[in-house]
């Protein structure tokens, strides 16, 4: 039976970050992954400061600072670009939302500036005319999350050992793989995204399907990650299907187009009417898109917790089991922050930001059935 100081289940961006962070603190880690594509392989990789509630803002801005500390060391294939975000106000009323956003972010030291209609047009000439204005957040960026996850694992060096296989059961300070192999460690971190529900006695997560489309390569036309200010309302809705304008310029010259949200489906097939609505929304903002070719579309599943915040902390019934789950649409952004909180908790150190809002215990009734 292989042993280590810690086992991390899942090598998506969250598990990779947890393994990396634990390794930084001198632990020997076994990182177990079944090599199936998860959310990390399907997402957009926008590193974005989100402020829909104070806890989300605290974690995203903390995590962005941590990313900025490592992006210079990341290889080119992680595609880091400090492109900033342009939040776009379609109607004049939305400028008030931009102003609130600006103030909330400023309270945490995150810099942003209000833009007039003309300034938006100047910065991004491909946007249609007549938009009300926007908010520019220069500190945001993008990365290619699957490669960033691989890089984190490599960067940890010998301290992180990869184990390929599916975890089929959790036992007291041990995991059992489909092959029958058993791995044990004093601490186990569950970071396997949506699949975690299969290993836990009570399901904790809900799938929110998202569809993306990517164009062919074109000479650079968009500079910032573009998001409509109405995005927050769409992203946080607890039911119903929605789309919001969200476009990312890939370093390749491709435009990655999002985003949609659909509940209670695990069907990976593209929903064509929804894709059409999403593309219509995108061409409302970027009319030139209509002339471009889309070369791929795909769907992924965000793993959402009941209150929209990630679950970071020990399972109340099993003190050896740490949960790093429920990152929904913000897991790439918050990966390093989440990992830092988990590692500090495991090492019984003070966390850099207040971790109470994310503690996994909030999701459990006091009596939890045993595994």
């Amino acid at each position, binding site marked *: 039976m292989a042993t280590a100081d810690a086992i991390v289940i899942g090598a998506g961006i969250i598990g990779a970050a947890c393994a990396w962070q634990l390794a930084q603190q001198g632990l020997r880690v076994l990182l177990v992954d079944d090599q199936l594509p998860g959310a990390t392989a399907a997402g957009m990789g926008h590193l974005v400061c989100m402020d829909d509630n104070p806890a989300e803002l605290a974690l995203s801005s903390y995590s962005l600072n941590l990313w900025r500390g490592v992006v210079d060391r990341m290889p080119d294939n992680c595609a880091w670009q400090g492109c900033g975000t342009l939040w776009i106000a379609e109607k004049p009323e939305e400028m008030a939302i931009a102003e609130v956003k600006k103030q909330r972010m400023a309270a945490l030291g995150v810099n942003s500036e209000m833009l007039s209609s003309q300034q938006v047009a100047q910065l991004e000439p491909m946007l249609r005319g007549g938009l009300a204005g926007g908010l520019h957040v220069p500190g945001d960026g993008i990365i290619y999350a699957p490669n960033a996850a691989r890089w984190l694992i490599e960067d940890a060096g010998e301290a992180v050992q990869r184990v390929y296989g599916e975890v089929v059961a959790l036992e007291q300070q041990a995991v059992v793989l489909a092959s029958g192999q058993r791995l044990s460690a004093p601490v186990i971190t569950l970071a396997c995204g949506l699949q975690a529900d299969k290993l836990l006695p009570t399901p904790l997560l809900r799938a929110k399907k998202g569809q993306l489309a990517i164009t*062919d390569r074109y000479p650079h036309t968009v500079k910032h990650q573009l998001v409509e200010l109405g995005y927050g309302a769409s992203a946080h809705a607890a039911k119903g299907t929605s789309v919001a304008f969200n476009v990312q310029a890939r370093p390749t010259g491709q435009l990655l187009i999002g985003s949609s949200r659909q509940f209670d489906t695990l069907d990976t097939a593209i929903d064509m009417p929804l894709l059409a609505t999403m593309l219509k929304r995108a061409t409302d903002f970027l009319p030139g898109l209509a002339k471009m070719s889309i070369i791929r579309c795909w769907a992924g599943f965000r793993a959402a917790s009941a209150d929209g915040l990630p679950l970071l902390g020990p399972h109340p019934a099993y003190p050896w089991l740490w949960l790093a789950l429920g990152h929904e649409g913000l897991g790439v952004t918050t990966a390093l922050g989440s990992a830092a909180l988990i590692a500090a908790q495991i090492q019984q150190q003070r966390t850099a930001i207040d971790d109470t809002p994310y503690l996994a215990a909030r999701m459990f009734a006091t009596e939890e059935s045993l595994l």
Partner: protein
Amino acid sequence: MKLISLTIAGLPCQVQEGITVAAALSASGQDHCRISVSQQPRAAFCGMGVCQECRVIIDGIQRLACQTLCQGGMKIERSGNK
């Protein structure tokens, strides 16, 4: 069998009416349609509009060679990724 005339990379040629641009490229003796970012020649692969390998410039517009039927007077250009 009716023949139609078109140009492939500037060279005039005649092809059977009703064939796809991918077939015309193949018949021209050089089936590649574009040069990829990593400088590899690419050609039609799935033949059914899914893989996007057969992107080619037809009359100035990028289209899928396997999904486009040849028309008289068409100008087909192989594309490189700039």
